[in-house]
């Protein structure tokens, strides 16, 4: 086990190195960090001075090695647009993103487990059919549409109709006030969750159906176990395996945030930061976020593999 983890970690570091090289190249070649400075009137002298200050006058590989050297020491450098440490920009956004994304993930898991089991157990019932229909609708809607519709109905129209309404997110509110936070979380979480619940319910339903027709389930029932115990203790444990894989894939992106949802609901998260700074050619910030997410992917994959062995004793790591 220990050997296995060490081997995976070494592999992970090599992968990360390759990822940083590729993304540094792509980030730098796809956008010109000087573009944002050349929009206004600027003299050739100013341009040369800024290029030198940003280190852009050096060859690309020198810039990369310099960046890598700092990153290895945990220093992501300075944002070239905001003139402040990248770590400062990221640490301001990370808590907000985590609250939004973790809440959504929990809501997604709770709802999809409950709905998945229920519609598998009541296969072809009215509920199952409606849910199946709805999940296809939900899964095929683009998130910006869901988000804007939710805002239009529950924030704009409800207020117009004199009903209790939810905030648009464009108001001034205090993140550290739990009741305000809860209120502001409802619509963004709902937007993020609707699509994912639609997808995950399908996964869980089909794997649950498969398990429920297995011999050991019949055996469990024949032993006289209560239906509830059969489903929750015997079936779910096995049916949840594909869900563990999916959640494992999700976890690193909890850090990356959700660009569209954060944009629509004015949520100050990492997704928006990434999108905004990428548009401004701020490669130090973009690289830092990419590296954090990439590292989280590598680590969460290792953890997922370990969790597998716990959920399913038939799986052995070697």
């Amino acid at each position, binding site marked *: 086990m220990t050997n296995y983890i060490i081997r995976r970690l070494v592999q992970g570091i090599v992968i990360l190195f390759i990822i940083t090289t590729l993304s540094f190249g792509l980030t730098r070649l796809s956008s010109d960090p000087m*573009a944002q400075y050349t929009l206004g009137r600027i003299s050739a002298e100013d341009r040369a001075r800024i290029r030198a200050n940003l280190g852009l006058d050096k060859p690309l590989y020198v810039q990369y090695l310099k960046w890598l050297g700092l990153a290895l020491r945990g220093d992501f450098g300075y944002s070239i*647009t905001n003139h402040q440490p990248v770590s400062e920009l990221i640490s301001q956004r990370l808590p907000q993103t985590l609250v939004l994304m*973790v809440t959504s993930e929990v809501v997604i898991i709770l709802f999809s487990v409950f709905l998945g089991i229920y519609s598998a157990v009541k296969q072809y019932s009215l509920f199952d059919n409606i849910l199946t229909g709805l999940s296809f609708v939900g899964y095929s809607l683009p998130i910006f549409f869901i988000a804007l519709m939710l805002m239009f109905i529950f924030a704009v129209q409800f207020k117009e109709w004199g009903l209790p309404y939810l905030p648009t997110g464009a108001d001034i509110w205090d993140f550290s006030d739990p009741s305000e*936070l809860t209120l502001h979380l409802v619509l963004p979480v709902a937007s993020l969750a609707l699509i994912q619940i639609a997808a995950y319910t399908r996964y869980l339903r089909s794997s649950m159906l498969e398990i429920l027709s297995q011999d050991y389930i019949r055996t469990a029932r024949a032993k006289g176990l209560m239906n509830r115990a059969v489903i929750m203790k015997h079936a779910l444990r096995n049916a949840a395996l594909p869900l563990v894989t999916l959640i494992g894939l999700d976890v690193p992106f909890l850090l990356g945030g959700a660009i569209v949802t954060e*944009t629509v609901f004015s949520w100050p998260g990492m997704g928006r930061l990434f999108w905004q700074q990428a548009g401004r050619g701020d490669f130090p910030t973009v690289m830092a976020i990419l590296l954090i997410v990439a590292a989280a992917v590598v680590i969460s994959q290792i953890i997922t593999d370990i969790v597998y062995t716990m959920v399913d004793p038939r799986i052995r790591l070697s």
Partner: protein
Amino acid sequence: MKRNLFVLLSLLVLASLVLAACGGAPEATEAAATEAPGAEATEAAAAEPKTITIGFQQEPTSLYPQCSNMTFAVWVGQMTNPGMWTWDGNNQPIMELAEAMPSVADGTISEDGLTYTYKLKPDLKWSDGEPLTSADLKFTWETIMNDANTCIISRLGYDSIASIETPDDVTAVVTFKEFYAPWANLFAMSGNSGSGLVPKHILEGQSLDTGDFQRKPVTAGAYYVEEWVQGDHITLQANDNYFRGRPKIDTIFIKMVPSREALLAALQTGDIDLGPDFVEASIPDLESTPGVSAIAITSSSFEHYLFNLDPEIGFCPFQDVRVRKAMILGIDRFTIADTLLFGKTRVVSNLWPNTPVENTDLEPYPFDPEQAAALLDEAGYTDTDGDGIREGECNGETVKLSFTHQTTTPNQLRADVQATAAQNLLDIGIEMIPDNKDPDILFAGYAADGPLATGNYQLGGYTTSFIPDPDPAGNFDCDQIPTDESPDGANWYRMCFPELDALMLEQKSVADPVARAEIFKEAQQFMYDNALFIPLYARLNVLGVGPRLTGLQGSAFGDVYWNVYDWDVVP
């Protein structure tokens, strides 16, 4: 410690959401219901502070405008950080920290145009109560020129200053190395660029890069920055030390609302009172939203189509003035302004619309397809092969009047205007093929192979402006055509007309604004007679305004923020 707090907080939120999920909708609605009466109570109590919220679609990179190229940063600067003067609702200079603008008449501009005497208002104070003196003006220049401040973007103009003397607290004598015609742009804020003063007592011996000045500057404006929660909002508080007296509104929140759709919704719900940076196409949406009105400021920015006038790499028929004139006559710019821009703007004849140097004698060329066709016939372009497109001889070769047009995408208005223009031109036998590019690609520099910068285009299209100073920064100068040797050249038109070149050189050496305006008018006449571009229309600055906010007066030079001290809220 902080991390623990967030774990705790997230758990709390999770718990409450689980509860909400179990209990269904009532949980959430109850909380919202308790909010609503609170808001009403705020309106009822007269003693409550007056607050408004402005929704910014983009977050400034810095709150010191010299360290940011963003208009959003300039707007914060207009509200917080005054310069010597700004430009009012009629595009006229209005004094801020200065007592009066230097002029040749009263001797505050020397005969040779190199020495300017600035007089400050007496008893000026920074928002922290410290006195603001001419030493701060000198320090502002030193700050911009100091290599330690790497965030400074443009030193244009400031690098022409040789020295600044401060004989007393309210007098600064600025001496230039060479004559700098746009001197009025320096130490001044307009709606799209500028620099207010920076405080010597705070920043002396300190780099702008390391301190928190860029995020929490001490300034002398109607408001000062109390807090900037990055990614979320900026809080501006009324400045008791402001030279015009405390402004009427107590607190201005600037909330970052990156989605234009969400901003519109928030204007409707009243979360936002002012939303700048809408686009022309948003006007019907704004006007049809209950409680929201649209302000459309006719700006000095102009949309124009530009011919590549390079005789070597440009489209050969564009060398003929008759072809260029026929294209202007052939495009129905009036219908474009009336329908696609809802009649809120006008067709322009020149590149200095709504500025004091505009040559108002020049009427836009009419829409006259017949005259256009006659000009093309005269130039020798006729449809000989019956395909509907004219052909003719150019430089000894047969050329079809068919070319590409590059403007930015995605941009619905530009696409619609382009489609109208293409159809109009087709009617007179000219084929214009859209070849639109992402702005990053279209405006990329010479080294990055940008089509406009390298001249790799036939007909282009974009917006620019020459304000508040009319100097076009080399846009039409022969020696500014970008080449391998001088890749930063500003003349993307690749035009070289000795008469125009001479006028552009002359305007840079005249101190008297009236005489200088005459030179610009002459230059516009030359451009008009030679049909050097296809001027389309003056762009609109579109803002959405909620029902509470009053006192806004927009202008091309000052935007709406120049008189923030006069804004108020209706009870």
